[in-house]
């Protein structure tokens, strides 16, 4: 018990928690945006993989790190357009379409990686984002190391959540996005194009998801590995339900998740050997399932989630 408290009270622990949470914050922000507009985007796992691969690849080929982030976002937007085309324009099953895009984006990423690097046994490395060193801010006690010695992408993730919360709650367009997820027919009656709104939300949300993937290759690690996304996309979908589709709670969920993950890594070092490592590796997935079950009881999903809107049909 003493060791558990010791772990929770260290500054480095909370810094690690936020670092681990960063790709999830991007992913869950993207998922919240898509789902508030009424589209469950199960392309997320593949979109994050594609973002991780393309972002890393262009940096490896000589682009700057922010160039990598931009390319990842564009790749995500493009895949989002595919998701939206299938689920919004054609009104196909959001479950199956999303999985199809995940399968496509994942295999295309792996194929593309092998295409660019035919025989790289040891994956080539890039120079990733360095931790920030801001005057004054980075030297603050506790807050400095936890917030301002992260990489720029972590701060960007926090900014994205704030922006998303403001956008959904305070702007006319945000209101329209929420309305289109609750009652698309009413939005249509206002003379607003339901499909265009939904497509826009899915494209923007997918771009965010891809940046979350790019964080893995451009900040957390410095190379691309097969299966490196490892279910983070699915975890984001579970966290979205847990958060009741609200951005602030999504941030909280992602950070709690990151804290739990950082905690199990440290506990593993303490308990090392007594328990097989796989038990610890299972915990994040089991925790996500638990979060989903808790969230599913209380949460109120957007009413039109997973219902395609076809003009003139009720």
């Amino acid at each position, binding site marked *: 018990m003493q060791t558990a408290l010791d772990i929770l009270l260290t500054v480095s622990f909370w810094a690690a928690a936020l670092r681990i949470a960063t790709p999830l914050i991007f992913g869950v922000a993207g998922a919240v945006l898509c789902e508030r507009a009424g589209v469950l985007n199960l392309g997320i796992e593949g979109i994050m993989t594609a973002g991780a691969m393309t972002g890393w690849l262009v940096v490896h080929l000589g682009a700057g790190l922010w160039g990598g982030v931009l390319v990842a976002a564009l790749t995500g937007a493009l895949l989002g357009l595919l998701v939206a085309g299938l689920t919004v324009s054609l009104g196909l*099953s959001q479950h199956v379409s999303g*999985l199809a895009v995940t*399968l496509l984006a994942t295999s295309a990423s*792996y194929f593309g990686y092998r295409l660019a690097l035919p025989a790289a046994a040891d994956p080539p490395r890039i120079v990733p984002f360095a931790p920030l060193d801001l005057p004054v801010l980075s030297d603050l006690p506790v807050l400095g190391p936890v917030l301002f010695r992260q990489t720029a992408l972590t701060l960007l993730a926090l900014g994205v959540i704030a922006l998303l919360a403001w956008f959904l709650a305070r702007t006319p367009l945000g209101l329209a996005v929420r309305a289109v997820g609750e009652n698309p027919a009413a939005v249509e009656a206002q003379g607003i194009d339901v499909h265009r709104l939904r497509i826009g939300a899915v494209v923007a949300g997918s771009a965010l998801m891809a940046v979350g993937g790019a964080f893995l290759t451009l900040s957390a690690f410095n190379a691309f590995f097969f299966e490196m996304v490892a279910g983070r996309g699915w975890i984001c979908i579970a966290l979205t339900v847990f958060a009741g589709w609200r951005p602030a709670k999504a941030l909280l969920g992602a950070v709690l998740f990151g804290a739990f993950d950082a905690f199990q890594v440290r506990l593993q070092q303490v308990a090392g050997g007594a328990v097989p490592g796989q038990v610890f590796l*299972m915990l994040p997935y089991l925790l996500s399932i638990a979060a*989903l079950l808790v969230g*599913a009881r209380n949460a109120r999903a957007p009413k039109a989630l997973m219902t395609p809107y076809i003009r*003139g049909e009720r």
Partner: protein
Amino acid sequence: MIRLQPRSETPRLLALAVPVAAALAALALAAIPLALAGAPIGRAYATMLEGAFGSRFALAEVLTRATPLIFTGLAAAVAFRARLYNIGAEGQLYLGALAAVAVGAGAVDGPPALVTPLVLAAGALAGAALMLGPALARVLLGADEVVTTLLLNFVVLLLVQMMIEGPMKDPMSLGWPQSEPLIDAAQLPKLIERTRLHAGLLGALACALAVHVLLSRTVAGYAIRAVGAAPAAARFAGLPVAGTLVGVGALSGALAGLAGAGEVAGVKGFLAADLSPGYGYAGIVVAMLAGLSPLGTVAAAFFVAAVFVGADSMSRAVTVSSYIANLIVAMALIAVLVAGILTRYRVRLARAGSA
């Protein structure tokens, strides 16, 4: 302007033509990544065809790979019919394989006629048990089964790694993490000597027929279809919606578990972490290509298996990554989704504004 008019029923020929067209379209689209890789397109397709159908052994290999795909395809098809989206076939396959090893690697002994059914039953039970959780969570809590089953896939794979590196590890495997081998009496007989083709194929075909009969000829099958087509109406008609969903979940999990038990008892003889190259996920593609028809699943599994076997030879002959197979299969899924619109709607050319 193009207008879509709902069809009241789908012409049989069209229902057959759509998946075939989608499969061909996916194969044609594969020319793009092949061209990007700088491969000679014509030779690539020729070696692919040759690799899948060029010899008796190639064909036997296709049928060997089609066997688990029929099982996982059926698992997806029967669940999707009830709109229970079981995406956990990969995890259920591995848990089924784990159970098969637990029973078949010496725990029970006797004549093959006794041990083999026990091994397969253990696999089916394990798969069913794993799917019960997500099905119950969906029915009782409204938790989306897609996410729970997907997350469980990761948990089960870690559990398998833990078992084959720990308690179930074969001490004779020279450090490789793999389970102890099944005893001879637990192994499925080979159908053709000197190939990998085993009796599991017959089991898969029998299951396809059984699921077909279940769905089309029984009360339970009617309930499954009704729950999938219109849950509210099914509830109003007094059908046990929750019970049907849980039952169909157990059946789906059992079929996926059989895929794993069959791979262990028929092909590998032991369990390793690379038992399945994604048969669980490919099963979804198989089911969609089959239009969720159990008998169609057999043909779709044969196609997907042929793509995998053919792409293996092709990737060696023209040196492109073997991920081309996964790419083709994913494109086939998207193609069949889009083409499926033709079976549900009539495409009409109409003047704008005339509704």
